[in-house]
């Protein structure tokens, strides 16, 4: 095969979902033996594009060439036949089956199913590229990184020579990420091509040969990684130079509001999700929570909100007059009945914060439907609130009787935050408040949070973007493995310091 024929060529690919154009006229080449990073913000259409290569979606327009020939990829089976394998962000594994069973799933070599033979072949692959899995182990007993390994072996087992990885590092620890990158380099030297979808610049720079950038469903440009720098990439990705310039007023008269002491939360099978967490949250300040996803952020917020059983420790709510009340062991209703106005913007907006199939008015009611003695719920007030939120936060919706599932991510978040703030809370807990939002919506949310801060609300802000945390928060609490690895001043700390704390308990040593 001539080296200059791309393994894969996309020409003028367009994909629409209803009125939304997810991919607009995208053309892209993938060369043999290269690691191509596909860079773009959330919602820029990276995953959609890759889903069309792997046969999950079918493009509305455009053509695909594999090794110079025009091909038609109507199903994942077609993709396999072309040597294309995708590793999804949400693993596509069957929980109750073993690793080996998952790996041979859907294959048919015309012979009898022989899992022992497959297991030997799996071991060979592991040896060749440098990872390790137990073929007999059931998926539900595996850690996230083990599952990802199974996914990668699965596509290699099928003889894929083009691997697509969708945000593979989002769920990994730094060590696991390093190991993964080594595996990818081994594949590259074996002549395989790799596409890695990501929005982390530092990863792009460390692993890829070439980077292609998407923005809002459009192809922007591609460049050799060697000649690219972070600023250039960011500019291309977001379309303009990012200077966040988030307002950060100095807290006025901060008072203790929530005091957490030695909080320990156990997950399923007694795994400690939080271990001896202590901190205080003060009125009129924003306390940021940083950490790699899955290091106890969710459990921390849910424990305070009364949704997570606490194993040991205490969570005290401090009134203005200094009297304290214990929140541990109380459910959200009890906490509310105690007169504690605690707003919570959870990570899972449509699954927890809102009811996806109800309209705006009914969603506004979630917090207020109990008010009054009548057996009937008051819909007048929630209706007014819905109109108010739509009006003030510029929610883009046909009407307040549209079901929220039909709104876009940013609008959904505005509805949720709008409702929570309308409770006039004294404590506001937010998890990934701007995830998946465009820049403008993000700023609207920052602004809302800041306004609450100025009104004296104690805010716990769990975020993933360090730049935002550093500009928005007064103090930053860093979680690592369910423990507090440090609490730093947002005004004086550096990205390096927080990043190190995220990956090291105790911090101190700069890892890289």
């Amino acid at each position: 095969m001539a080296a200059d024929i791309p393994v894969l060529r996309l020409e003028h690919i367009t994909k629409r979902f209803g009125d939304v154009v997810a991919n607009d006229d995208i053309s892209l080449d993938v060369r043999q033996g290269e690691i191509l990073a596909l860079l773009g913000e959330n919602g820029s259409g990276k995953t959609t594009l890759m889903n069309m290569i792997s046969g999950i979606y079918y493009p509305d327009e455009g053509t695909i060439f594999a090794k110079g020939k025009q091909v038609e990829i109507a199903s994942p089976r077609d993709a396999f036949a072309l040597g294309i394998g995708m590793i999804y962000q949400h693993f596509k594994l069957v929980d109750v089956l073993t690793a080996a069973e998952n790996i041979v799933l859907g294959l048919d070599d015309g012979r009898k199913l022989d899992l022992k033979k497959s297991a030997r072949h799996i071991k060979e692959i592991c040896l060749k590229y440098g990872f390790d899995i137990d073929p007999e182990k059931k998926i539900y007993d595996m850690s996230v990184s083990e599952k990802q390994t199974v996914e990668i072996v699965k596509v290699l087992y099928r003889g894929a020579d083009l691997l697509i990885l969708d945000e593979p590092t989002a769920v990994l620890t730094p060590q696991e990420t390093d190991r993964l990158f080594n595996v990818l380099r081994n594949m590259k030297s074996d002549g395989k091509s790799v596409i890695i979808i990501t929005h982390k610049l530092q990863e792009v720079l460390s692993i890829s040969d070439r980077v292609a950038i998407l923005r809002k469903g459009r192809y922007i440009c591609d460049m050799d990684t060697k000649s690219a720098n972070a600023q250039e990439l960011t500019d291309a990705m977001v379309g303009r130079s990012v200077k966040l310039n988030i307002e950060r007023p100095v807290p006025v008269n901060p008072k203790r509001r929530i005091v957490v002491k030695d909080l320990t939360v156990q997950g399923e099978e007694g795994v400690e999700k939080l271990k001896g967490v202590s901190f205080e949250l003060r009125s009129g300040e924003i306390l940021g929570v940083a950490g790699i996803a899955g290091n106890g952020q969710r459990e921390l917020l849910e424990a305070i909100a009364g949704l997570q059983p606490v194993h040991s420790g205490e969570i005290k709510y401090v009134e203005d007059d200094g009297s304290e009340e214990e929140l541990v062991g109380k459910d959200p209703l009890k906490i509310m009945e105690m007169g504690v106005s605690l707003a919570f913007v959870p990570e899972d907006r449509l699954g927890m914060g809102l009811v996806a199939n109800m309209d705006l008015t009914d969603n506004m009611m979630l917090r207020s439907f109990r008010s009054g003695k009548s057996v009937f719920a008051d819909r007048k007030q929630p209706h007014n609130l819905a109109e108010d939120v739509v009006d003030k936060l510029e929610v883009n919706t046909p009407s307040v009787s549209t079901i929220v599932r039909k709104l876009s991510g940013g609008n959904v978040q505005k509805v949720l935050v709008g409702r929570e703030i309308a409770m006039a809370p004294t404590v506001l807990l937010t998890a990934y408040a701007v995830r998946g939002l465009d820049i403008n919506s993000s700023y609207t949310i920052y602004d809302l949070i800041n306004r609450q801060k100025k009104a004296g609300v104690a805010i716990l802000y769990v975020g993933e973007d360090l730049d935002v945390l550093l500009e928005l928060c007064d103090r930053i609490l860093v979680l690592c493995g369910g423990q507090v690895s440090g609490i730093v001043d947002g005004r004086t700390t550096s990205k390096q310091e927080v990043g190190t704390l995220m990956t090291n308990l105790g911090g101190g040593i700069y890892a890289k």
Partner: protein
Amino acid sequence: MRNRGVHFHISRRNDISWRKAWGIRCAVMALAFLLCGLITMAATGLNPIKVYAAMIDGNFGTSRRFWMLLQNMAVLLSISLALVPAFRMRFWNLGGDGQALMGALGAAACMILIGDKVPSFVLILIMAVASIVCGMVWAAIPAWFKAKFGTNETLFTLMMNYVAIQLVAFFVIVWEMPKGSGKIGIINQSTQAGWFPQIGGNKYLLNILIALLITVGVYIYMRYSKQGYELAVVGESGSTARYVGIKIQHVIIRTMMLSGALCGITGLLLVGGTDHTLTTTIVSGRGFTGVMVAWLAKFNPFVMILTTFLLVFLKGGSSEITTIFGLNQSFGDIITGVLLFFILGCDFFLNYTISMSKSGKEAA
């Protein structure tokens, strides 16, 4: 690679206009009736138009038939409405039959045991309480296990139907009249104690009024009450319910008790209002039919009046053609089945659109 030339592409519809939706529905119904006509012709050689005419006659032909139609609708409607709160909570209550049967048992027990001891209107009140309690208990049992352990409610409620049937069979033998006949016969034939009073000389009017009352009641409950809102939240998303402090277990049991109570009332209507006896088949599968009535109407109580009418009409019509054409009574079930298949299939066209795309170029 395969090149299929033409691709059918199915995608979710965002919105469909009210008019278009009903247009599609009506067209599908018409198609279904047409097909049923053809089946009739093929199976029996009869002229389908005559058969349909007979069905209409069977339901509307005389005022007695018309009242029967309304009365049957009342019973089916009330049991279907009983299922609505449970279904809105995504609780598959297939136990409507059993719950109604227990209600009937409670009512019949009162009529038999204390029929001659208290005045009739007091008796009717006691019957009402007894049947509501019986239905409630029968529904609360699977609900409790669902709430506590997540026990599969579909099969649990289903099995409770058969337990109820055997329980009634037991009491039928205990109370059989005359001894050895294996059935109860008309209860309180002479005194009419516990029989619903006739309103304006009409035997069934009270049943119909009660059913209408339940319709309005369920509509208001589901749409305006706090409890109705709560159970809808629980049905849509358990974690949202927990997030706002709704006690899910509590709501499951409460809602099922309501569902069971309404089923119990249906049993009361059957024993006190129409049949004045107790048999194991008194509910005759209306609990299942009710599932379909409620589902087809998308749980809207007023639309359910229409779907009830449709199913009762077919049932009544088929008993008429039984006598006229010597066809079998079960013919109605076949037509009902076919109609249901069409309506079930029809939803697809309301929720999805199919588009065709041609890829003209040949694969190299």
